[in-house]
């Protein structure tokens, strides 16, 4: 059996990627990496914490989920009738794991021996769900502990407090794991309903990277997927509420046991949610340039703030863009959140007014390109990010090309449009008096 593929050559990165399409609608990507000891595979579904209202064509009614189902399902797939799936990877000498984000759930392993068997195990356990009343009840206890652990995590709290302030109704404002109350509503039936929808092959993809023969691996995956007799399912329609442009509230403060206040400033992006594919990626690249030019370690602001002991090396920024929401975050630990806020807002304003020099623009463009290439040392980085981009209908390998295309004018224009004071919120953790 041979299945056809498309070979995608990337000259900038000197990589060759093999893309296979397997019926019904499943994408497989294989990237050979000669010389690596480790082989890494990630099996992902477009089902994350924000997908909590959906229907499958031709249904008319939406299924509404309590918060935390995608994450709960991830935990439960690791247990089947024979017990714990980790043990079978352990027998193969492989290391397995999983994670749930706002938009996807991923199962993965890395192995230096027994790759084919490990891949077989990954395909098997993700495609063979087993949920019972007893196992669901036990998991509610374990995830309850996980939720508690995050409640004590200041950087996690400041992050979600900010999202809760930026967003009025969009489910990105809810914790990925849900709450102790919301996960108490989860039943085996509900898990099967979600599983049968979101774990259909047409909603999933696999990325495999390492020192391997693509054709042989592809045949193994194809034979497995085809043997399971998946039928066709209707299109999945996800329902996201209409998020207003303005924020929920401009400032949120929480007290926790920390050594110093933590400051996160966020801006809601109201344009990116309408973009997909390379348009969305272009916006991401531009925002990375904008933020690095204003807040990066080679610019005046960072060095002044550092000198004045207002920030430390942990100060950073991030722009995150998905198909239906996007935001910018800037922050870190600080002795004086009010003063830092003032300085950051002033710097944004100054950049808008004074512009960006050609030298600045080229220098940051070089830095982003080099940083991107360096990250290609990591098999996990390549695989995880490729699928995340793929699920937004964009191609991660296009980054160097788009980076060369964008202009200084576009970058400046985006700084003005997207870091808009009318859509910003501030989240602060202050030290409690507890010693």
């Amino acid at each position, binding site marked *: 059996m041979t299945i056809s593929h498309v070979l995608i050559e990337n000259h*900038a*990165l*000197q990589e060759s990627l093999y893309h296979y399409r397997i019926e019904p609608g499943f994408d497989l990507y294989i990237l050979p990496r000669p*010389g*690596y*000891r*480790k082989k890494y595979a990630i099996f992902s579904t477009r089902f994350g914490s924000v997908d909590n209202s959906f229907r499958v064509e031709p249904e008319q009614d939406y299924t509404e989920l309590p918060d935390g189902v995608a994450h709960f399902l991830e935990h439960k797939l690791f247990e089947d009738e024979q017990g*714990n799936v*980790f*043990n079978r990877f*352990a*027998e193969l*000498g*492989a*290391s*397995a794991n999983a994670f749930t984000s706002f938009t996807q759930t991923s199962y993965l392993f*890395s*192995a*230096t*021996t027994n790759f084919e068997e490990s891949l077989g195990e990954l395909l098997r356990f993700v495609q063979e769900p087993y949920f019972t009343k007893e196992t669901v009840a*036990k998991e*509610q*206890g*374990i995830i*309850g*502990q996980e939720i*508690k*652990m995050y409640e*004590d*995590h200041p950087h996690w709290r400041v992050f979600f407090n900010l999202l809760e302030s930026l967003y009025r109704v969009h489910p990105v404002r809810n914790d990925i794991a849900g709450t*102790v109350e919301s996960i108490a509503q989860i039943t085996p039936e509900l898990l099967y309903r979600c599983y049968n929808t979101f774990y259909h092959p047409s909603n999933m993809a696999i990325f495999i990277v390492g020192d391997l023969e693509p054709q042989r691996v592809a045949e193994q995956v194809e034979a497995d997927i085809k043997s399971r007799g998946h039928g066709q399912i209707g299109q999945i329609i996800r329902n996201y509420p209409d998020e207003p442009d303005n924020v929920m509230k401009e400032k949120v403060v929480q007290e926790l*046991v*920390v*050594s*110093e206040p933590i400051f996160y400033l966020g801006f809601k992006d109201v344009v990116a949610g309408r973009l997909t594919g390379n348009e969305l990626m272009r916006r991401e690249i531009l925002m990375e340039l904008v933020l690095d030019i204003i807040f*990066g*370690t*080679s*610019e005046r602001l960072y*060095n002044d703030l*550092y*000198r004045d*002991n207002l920030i*430390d090396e942990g100060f950073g920024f991030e722009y995150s863009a998905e198909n239906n929401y996007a935001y910018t975050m800037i922050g870190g*630990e600080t002795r004086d959140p009010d003063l830092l806020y003032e300085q950051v807002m002033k710097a944004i304003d100054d950049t808008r007014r004074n512009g960006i020099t050609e030298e600045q623009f080229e*220098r*940051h463009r*070089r*830095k*982003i*390109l*080099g*940083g991107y*290439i*360096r990250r290609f*040392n*990591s*098999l996990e980085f390549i695989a995880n990010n490729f699928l995340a981009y793929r699920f937004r209908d964009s191609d991660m390998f296009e980054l160097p090309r788009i980076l060369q295309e964008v202009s200084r004018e576009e970058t400046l224009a985006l700084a003005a449009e997207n870091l808009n004071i009318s859509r910003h919120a501030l989240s602060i953790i202050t030290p*409690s008096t*507890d010693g």
Partner: protein
Amino acid sequence: MSEDYSIYHLPNGIRLLFLNTDKFKTISMGLFIHCDLDRETAALNALLPSVLEQGCRLYPDNLTLQRKLENLFGAELSTDIIKNGERHIIAFGLEAAHGRFTGENGHLMKDSMTILGNVIKDPLLEDGAFRQSYVKQEKNQLIKDIKALLNDKSAYAVEKCLSAMCAGEKYGVYKLGRIEDYDLISAEDLYQHYQEVLKENPIDLYVIGDLNENEVFETASSIFSFSREKTACPLSPAEIGHQVKEVRVIEEQMTVNQAKMVLGFRTSIPFNDQLFCALLVYSGVLGGFPHSKLFMKVREEAGLAYYIHTRLERHKGLMLIAAGINAADQKNVQEIIKAQMTEMLSGAITDAELDNTKRGLVNQLLSRQDNPSQLIAFHLDGVAGGVDYSFDQLIRGIESTDIDRIRMVAEKITLDTAYLLKPREGEVVQDDN
């Protein structure tokens, strides 16, 4: 793969370890100054890389230095202070995208090493000392870092357990020293201290990438050419033999939701011991993996923890068990742990537990070869531990470990300190178990 390093000594005695490989998309360099961990010098050592990173004579401030690095396609300069057993290692690193991906002009290795060299050997001086304002600024930052340990409750609990456990030993010194140590340090003292370590202490320079060996040696020799003592000062091995008289119990209250339990054990097995590989297997079977006894019993069967694992301080012969639990479950959890350790002692270990652990350890070791900084860290571990294990040696040692040897390890393991960080009484909002 550590066998594949080409090892040279530069004319001034600095050791150069070069690994020629085209596997990575980068060139990576690391320079390490090996020191003894000591209460007197801990804060001085910690300050050095932070101050040096602020600027050198040629690039006198961070802004200038960062711009230089950005033009080298975002090469990344990093510094660190590492505690490896009772060694204190001052670390500098530089990683750059290899020129064949950026269309760079062919001088990348030389340009990168020049920056690294300038930062290390040609610091910015004022009146025969480091620049006062940088020293003051970095003191503030490090004091802040010491205080910030509180922000990560798991790491905080581990550090509290270890420092109580080793209070009278060198290992009890925190890698950043104590807050009060910083008050006394002047820019002059710090520069004086730096001149001493640069001249007297052993220094290793690692270079990994697709590069010409001769060129690497020539470049390193010309850049790192400062004068040094003929023989580097000797460093002492970590002290392992501490006897436990009675178990130390520590409880600390804080406004938190989840309790953190850390149990500190003495293994009495040094890094270069015949039982070292058996210790790796012991810790793995007990709590190193998701298939391990503690994870299966405490989390999977009893549902009493989100995380529970063992961890080795391999250069000091210590083992920790760390868990995030409900404070009310502490007794239960401790009983399960005790029962599992009794099984280890009696050799009640299934073939699957043993074999899976060995495979898991081997997988971890081989995986480290896919990452330049892991390759460096692996070799550095050997230097600090006084025995340069190869990957193959460790793998053979792990694979040949049998239950008898694990029992020999189990017999040596003694609980020293039990630490619990727990929520303030009456403040637990709810208990879902």
